C-alpha cells in the first residue's frame, strides 16, 4: 500500500460502535425509473453485507458506503433473511435494484448460493434486475451462471468506472482497476445480452471544478462508444461521506462538492453527444452542504430540473433555469486553477 492508500484506510473505522442487526437490510424503498421508454416504479433494496472487498484493502477516496456494511462476517442465511425482510414491502415493481455497498457479484461479499437464491426468486417476480459490481467479478463464469439463473429477466450491471482516465482513477480515486478492465467487463456483459450502467464520478478530490468538468467530458467521449441502446450512463456527483478522504479535506475547507451548474453543463454536453445511451443523474445529498450544491437558494429548482432530465433526456429544460450564483460558479472556473489550491470554494473563501 502506498501512503495515500494507507491514509484512506486509516480514516475508516474497523468496527461499528453499535453492531447493526445482520438479519435486517440497510434500507428499501420504491422510486421512479425508466423501463425502455416508460416511466415505471422501481424497488430498491440495500443489503448489509460484510463490505466491499476493495474497501478492506484500502478503498476509494470518496466512498463511505462501508459505513452501511457490517464490517464483519454476514452469513448466507442472514443475507437471505435480509432479502426476505425487504421483499415483504415489494409491490410488484417491474424493476428491482439490489445494492450492497460493494459488489453483488463478489462471492466473498454475497456467496454464490445467496446470489442464486435472489436471482432465481426475482426472475419469477420482476422484469428487470439491477446490481452493481466491480469489473473483476464480471467473468465468463459468473455471467454464464447468472444467465442460467435468469430465464426471462433483464439484468443491468452497474460498474463504477468513475473516469476514463486511468491516472485520475488511480491517483485521485484509488479505484484499483483500469479502463481496460472496465471495457473487458462491458464486452462480457454485452455478450450475455445484459446491459451496463456506467457510473461516472463528478469531481474527485485533487481536481478543481473546471478540471472535473473536463474530466467528465473526456470520459463521456470515451465511454459512449462502448455502450449500446440498453445501457445507462449514470453521473454521480461526489458527496461528502463519513470517514473518507473527501470528508477529511472538506472538513479542512480543501474540498467542495461540485456545483449543480457543473452538472448541468456536463449533462448538456452528454445529451448533445449521445445517440442512444440513457443518461441519468442521481444526486446524493443534493442541495446540502455535503452534497452537490449551488447557492442553496436555487438548489431545489436545479435539482428538479436535473431529475426531470434524467426521466425525459431533454436538455432544453436547463435553458429555463437561472440564478445569480451562476456568476460565482464562473468565478470558480476562472479563478480556481490559477489559485493553486487557495480557492477551493469562492462562496466560502
Amino acid at each position, binding site marked *: 500500500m502506498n501512503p495515500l492508500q494507507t491514509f484512506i484506510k486509516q480514516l475508516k473505522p474497523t468496527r461499528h460502535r453499535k453492531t447493526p442487526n445482520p438479519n435486517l437490510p440497510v434500507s428499501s424503498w420504491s422510486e421512479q425509473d425508466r423501463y425502455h421508454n416508460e416511466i415505471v416504479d422501481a424497488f430498491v433494496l440495500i443489503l448489509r453485507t460484510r463490505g466491499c472487498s476493495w474497501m478492506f484493502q484500502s478503498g476509494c477516496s470518496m466512498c463511505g458506503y462501508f459505513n452501511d456494511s457490517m464490517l464483519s462476517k454476514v452469513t448466507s442465511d442472514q443475507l437471505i433473511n435480509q432479502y426476505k425482510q425487504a421483499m415483504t414491502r415489494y409491490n410488484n415493481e417491474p424493476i428491482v435494484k439490489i445494492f450492497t455497498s460493494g459488489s453483488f457479484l463478489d462471492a466473498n461479499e454475497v456467496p454464490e448460493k445467496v446470489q442464486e437464491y435472489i436471482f432465481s426468486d426475482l426472475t419469477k417476480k420482476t422484469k428487470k434486475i439491477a446490481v452493481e459490481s466491480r469489473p473483476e467479478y464480471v467473468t465468463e463464469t459468473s455471467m454464464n451462471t447468472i444467465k442460467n439463473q435468469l430465464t426471462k429477466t433483464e439484468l443491468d450491471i452497474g460498474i463504477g468506472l468513475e473516469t476514463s482516465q486511468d491516472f485520475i482513477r488511480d491517483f485521485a480515486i484509488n479505484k484499483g482497476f483500469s479502463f481496460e478492465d472496465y471495457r473487458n467487463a462491458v464486452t462480457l456483459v454485452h455478450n450475455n445480452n445484459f446491459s451496463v450502467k456506467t457510473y461516472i464520478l463528478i469531481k474527485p478530490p485533487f481536481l478543481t471544478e473546471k*478540471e472535473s468538468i473536463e474530466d467528465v467530458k473526456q470520459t463521456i467521449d470515451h465511454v459512449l462508444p462502448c455502450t449500446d441502446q440498453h445501457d445507462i450512463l449514470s453521473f454521480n456527483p461526489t458527496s461528502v461521506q463519513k470517514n473518507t478522504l473527501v470528508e477529511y479535506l472538506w472538513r479542512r475547507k480543501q474540498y467542495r462538492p461540485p456545483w449543480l451548474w457543473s452538472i448541468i453543463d456536463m449533462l448538456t454536453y452528454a445529451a448533445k453527444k449521445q445517440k442512444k445511451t440513457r443518461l441519468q443523474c442521481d444526486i446524493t445529498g443534493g442541495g446540502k452542504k455535503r452534497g452537490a450544491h449551488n447557492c442553496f437558494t436555487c438548489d431545489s429548482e436545479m435539482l428538479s430540473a436535473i431529475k426531470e432530465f434524467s426521466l425525459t433526456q431533454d436538455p432544453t429544460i436547463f435553458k429555463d433555469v437561472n440564478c445569480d450564483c451562476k456568476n460565482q460558479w464562473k468565478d470558480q472556473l476562472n479563478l480556481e486553477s490559477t489559485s*493553486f*489550491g*487557495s480557492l477551493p470554494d*469562492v462562496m466560502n473563501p
Partner: protein
Amino acid sequence: MNFQCIATDGPSQTGFLQIKNEKVKTPGFLFPAEESYHPPSFAECFISSSTTKKYSPLITVGKNIFFKQNQQDQKTDINNHLVIPDALPESVKDYLQQFDRQQNKNIIMLSSDPTIASQRIKTNESALFIISNATQLFDNPKKFITYIASLREQINYDALLYTPSIATPETLGILTYIGCDLFDVTSAIIAARNQQFFLPQTIIETKKIVENPCHCPVCSQTKKHPSNFSFDQLLHHNYFMLHQELQIVRNAIKNNQLRDLIEQRIRFSPQLVTLLRHLDESEYDYVEKRTPVSMPESYILNATSRESGNRAEIKRFQHRVNSRYQKPKEKKILLLLPCSARKPYSFSKSHQRFQRAISKTKLPGVIHEVIVTSPLGLVPRELELTYPASSYDISVTGKWYEDEKLMIQQQLTTFLSNNTYDAIVSHLPKTLVQQIKTSEKPWHFSLTDNKATSKKSLQSLTAILNQILDRKQDQDYTSPSKSHQKKQQVHEIAAYQFGRTLATTLLKNSIVKGKYPYLKIFNENNQQLGMIPDQRGLISLTAEGGNKISHLSKYTVTIDTGFTVKGSILSPGVITADPSIRRGDDVLVNQGENFLGVGVATMNGSEMKKRSYGEAVNMRHKIKQ
C-alpha cells in the same frame, strides 16, 4: 525572467520583474486575463490558464498532471504540476510530491509543506515561486511566517514569491513586509460578488455604508449609493482600492516607512497582529539580517504601538549593548538619567542641564551617564549617536507600563552583570525606580521632586554625586582627560559597530580630536582613520582606517579581480562577504588578496552573494596604490 531590485525596507523589496520584453513593477498584482473581469488600465501583469494574446505581460498556467499535455501546453509557464492539499499528513504529501512533474525553470509552484518545498528549491534556481495553498497557510499565522521566512532564507534575494488569493487592502502591506512580492485580485472579485466594498483598512458591506468616503474614478463619477453599484462598478472600485494600497506600499518601501504603515494597517485584525508578532519574535534573525544599521538623517523610528518595541533594530541595539558594549574602565559611578524628546539626548536642554550638574562635581570623569528609556531600555551616553538611539520617538505621558518596566529591569540586570560600578545614582522618577531596581547595592536617589530638571533636583544630583565621591576618596579615582574620554566614546561606538576586536585594533595608538559629535580618529602619523558624521552615528572609515583593521577579516567583502572598481561594487562581482554585514555598515573591500578600500554596504553580507543585480557596496575611499 529576472528581477531588478530598486529598494528594500526590512524583508520587503520593490523593483522590476522582467517578463520577456516587458517590465512589471513589484510588489504587484496579477490580474486574471479574462474579458469578464474587465482588467483596468492600471493592470500591470496578468495570469491565465488560457494563452490569450490580448493581455500582456502574461503568466500562463497550463495543464496539471491529471491531463495530457499538447504542444501548446508545453509552452505555458507552469504545467505538469500537482497541487497537494495542505491538510494531508506529512507522509502522504511526501509520497504525492513525486507525481509533480514541473519542468519550467523560471517559475515553480511550491508545495505548502516546508520540507517538500526545501527539497524542490535545492535543484531549482527559479525567478518566481508560486506558493500553493496560500490561503490555508495564511490561516495559520505561525505556519505562514515560518514558511515564508525559511523559504526566503533558502532562495535568492532576487527570487520573487507569489501568494495567490490572500491579498486585500488590509493584508497587502504586511504580506509585502514579510517578503511576498506578487499577489492577485481574487479578493476584489469575490468581494464585488458579495456586495462588499473595499476601504483602505477594511472591507464593508455596501448596505452598511452611510456616506461613501471614496473618491476613486468609479465613486466620483456616480451619485449612486454603493449598494446600487453594478458588479463592474463595485469590482472597479475594489481594483482601485487594491491599486491605491499597492502604490502606498511601494512608496513606503522607498521611504523606509513600510513598518510604520503596517503597524497601522494590522490594527483591525487580531490575525494580522499575530502575524507580525510571530515575525518579530520567531523570525528575528530573518528580519534583523534585512534591517539596516543606520538610516537617513530624516528618519524617525516612531514607536507608537506595542509591536514597535519588537522591531529588529531595537532588539539588535539591546543585544549589542549587552554583548558588544563595555563601559570605560575609569567610569565608577553609574548615573541613570531619563531620556529626552530631542535626539541625540545631549543636544536637549534637559541633558545639557544634567551635564552641567555633573561637571560641577569633583570628578565628572568617573561618572557614567546611562539613559533609561522605552523601548530601547538602556542607552550608554557613548552610543547616543547610533541608530535607533539617535532617532526614535515615543508617546510620553509620564506613566510607565508594566511591560516597559519589565523590559528595562531585564536590560538593567544584564547591564549590571556585565559592568561593575561602585555606586548607582538614579535621577529617575521614584515610581519607575521602585520597579526596576534589581542590584543588591544601595541606590542613591537624586530627584527631590518629580521634575528631573528642577533646580532643586539638579542641585541634589551634584550634591549626592559629591557625597559618593567623598566617601570613595581612598579608591584613587582619576578623571580621564577630555581627549581620552573622546577616544573611549569612539572606541565604544566602534565596538558597537564592528565588535570589540576590530574596535581595539582600530583605536590602538590613535588620537581622537574634534568637537562632539564630529569626532575624528587619527593615527600616530596624523593620518585620519575615520570620523563620526552625525547623520550616521557610526564610524566612517578612511582607506587608512580600513587598512589598519583589514587583516582581521571581519566586515570584509572580497570581490573578483577581473574589473576596475569605480563608485560602486555590484553584487555579481562579490565572491565572499562576511554574513554579519548589514545594510548601512562600513565594510572593508578586498580585491582578491589585496585590500582595496572602504565603502558602505547597500546589501547585507549574505544578500551580496545571493543577489544577481544591484549595488552591493558604495565605495567611499580607495587605498592609494
